[in-house]
């Protein structure tokens, strides 16, 4: 009885799904899905190699410091970094005094201890990076109705994180003539900027970097590509400050586990030896 009912239920579902298949196939044949500009012109990020990549990755502290400088002098005008505190910068190789000094160079919101009114004050190492805008509405108003996203987790919140950041920052270009010929409606709108690495190709952020925009303390030449790479490395660190510690811990764990598993294998062999069939050697 169960099998009879099951048979009819099975056939019913099969008929229903094959009917959906037939309708779908008919639609696909009569009205093929129109290609879109996003489909044809979107590009996946170009590969980027950072010192922190791979199982043996290490932080390149010089590069992280350069990246921090780019964030501070360029990105921070619009983008917050709210999950990172100034004290965390000590991990980039800054001394305690340097951390204090750089924290003090930022203005953070505060409360007047006498009047209780809101004001601003220089940052201390325990403060988090301040947001450039008081609220989302102000952020939208200043940025062509687009909220600049927080950058703390950016390299984990996009596919190919650091490579994406690097490609996006260096990927601005004029809209290809071919695209306009094929999709006349897809012309980049006013206040937007064409970038094939952005999901919908048109980005509200203007190209933020230009050659020699910052002056690196270590004398590295500040090309757009260099700055984009450095800031991508910096954002890899902000997204996961424990990244390198994680990989190093992983090696200790793996060495232990491989050793323990080999022991477990021999233990198993020994325990099973008395009941494992002993076949006469064939020679």
């Amino acid at each position, binding site marked *: 009885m*169960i*099998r009879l009912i*099951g048979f009819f239920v099975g056939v019913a579902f099969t008929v229903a799904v094959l009917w*959906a298949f037939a309708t*779908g196939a008919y639609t696909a044949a009569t009205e093929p899905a129109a290609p879109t500009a996003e489909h044809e012109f979107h590009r996946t990020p170009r590969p980027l190699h950072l010192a922190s990549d791979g199982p043996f990755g290490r932080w390149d502290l010089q590069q992280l410091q350069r990246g921090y400088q780019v964030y501070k002098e360029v990105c921070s005008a619009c983008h917050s970094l709210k*999950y990172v505190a100034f004290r965390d910068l000590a991990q980039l190789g800054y001394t305690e005094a340097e951390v204090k000094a750089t924290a003090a160079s930022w203005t953070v919101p505060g409360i007047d201890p006498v009047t209780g009114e809101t004001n601003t004050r220089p940052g201390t190492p325990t403060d988090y990076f301040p947001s450039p805008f008081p609220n989302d509405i102000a952020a939208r108003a200043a940025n062509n109705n687009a909220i600049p996203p927080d950058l*703390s987790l950016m390299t984990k*919140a996009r596919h190919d994180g650091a490579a994406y950041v690097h490609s996006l920052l260096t990927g601005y270009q004029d809209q290809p003539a071919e695209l306009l010929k094929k999709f006349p409606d897809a012309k980049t709108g006013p206040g937007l900027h064409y970038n094939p690495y952005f999901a919908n190709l048109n980005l509200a952020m203007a190209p933020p970097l230009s050659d020699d925009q910052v002056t690196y303390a270590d004398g590295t030449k500040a090309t757009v590509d260099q700055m984009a790479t450095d800031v991508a490395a910096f954002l890899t660190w902000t997204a996961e400050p424990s990244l390198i510690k994680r990989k190093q811990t992983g090696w200790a764990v793996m060495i232990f586990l491989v050793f323990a598993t080999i022991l477990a294998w021999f233990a*198993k062999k020994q325990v099973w030896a008395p009941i494992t069939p002993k076949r006469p050697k064939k020679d």
Partner: protein
Amino acid sequence: MSFPWAKQYEPKAPLMRYLDEKLPLPRFLYNAVGGGYPVPRNLNYWWNFGVLAGFCLVLQIVTGVILAMHFAANAGVAFNSVEHIMRDVNWGWMLRYAHANGASFFFIVIYIHIFRGFFYGSYKAPREMVWLLGVVIFLLLMATAFMGYVLPWGQMSFWGAKVITGLFGAIPIVGEPIQIWLLGGYAPDNAALNRFFSLHFLLPFVIAGVVILHIWALHIPGSSNPTGVEIKSESDTIPFHPYYTAKDGFGLGVFLIAYCLMVFFLPNFMGHPDNYIPANPLSTPAHIVPEWYFWPFYAILRAFTADILFVPAKLLGVLAMFSSILVWFFLPWLDKSPVRSGHYRPVFKKFFWVLVVDMAVLFYCGGAPAEEPYVMLSQIATAYYFLHFLVILPIVSMIERPNPLPFSITEAVLGSDDKAVMAANATPAT
């Protein structure tokens, strides 16, 4: 029940004898997973996955309870509290990655455990109850995992919750009130997050309870084995301890190597980048996908794209998705072949591998965007899925002519061609 030749627990130390009189817990464990449980001597490494699933449950409970000490189930701060765990809690990043990847590995283990059951006919009499309880555990596990994924309150948490609870809205008339009642609102928000947290904490302990029933039910007929031939004599069995504890120990080592590779070197590989973006009800992600372990069922849900008469496509999809798992409950009665093991069932074996490929196709389509050719591919695969369990299996079990079975487990292990070897090895050393 146990076999008459099962070793008896004999406490030697006075304390253990005292304990055995007052609360025979050591005796209970001895009979459950110790020397007092006789197990077929021919279990292969596919039989390791039950113990591994139990290990995963303990791992998830331990890491989860510690994470709950630092997590805040409030829509305003949940995302921030996860970042707090990642950045400020000592070894918090390791706990969270261990828990998130632990869920993925739990499902890897459980899928292998289920498919082992499919192939070796572990669902057949006298182990139907073991199988039924197993399906209950799987359903509870899915509910727990789904609610756990909502807790970090990222974009995929929010939109996944919205899509999955939206499924209840497909039920005619009462659907929408049920959906609002489940969520405590019109969309996932603080009320939903709080109750999901509460249930996510509760359900693992319910699972632990059903796992005890699952193992209890297993111990009545005893474990199945790769030949599917029941235990006939003492020489067919060996005590669980030390033989299978040693074998499981090695299996656990291999499992931990694979698991720790992911935790320490690719912890976000099985996650979705969008879940590192805080939940935003005003911004829909381009492609909403659940966690990878739901992809096959998500593909079945989305395969139904056309209304049939008065039944809307969405309702069909929801019914099909739930039925695709509920059908497992009926497996012991759908497949009536007296032969358990797929090794001796030439026709069944071929269809089993077609089912494995079919599940892989469903998995692939479930993770892909709802576009062609993925939708059409998932429709074919969905059709086969239902045909397999409800039409092909019953028919195969009626018409198939199985290959000859070995006389006993001992014969299967030691080979009937070699009588001298058999005699020498027939009795296991104690």
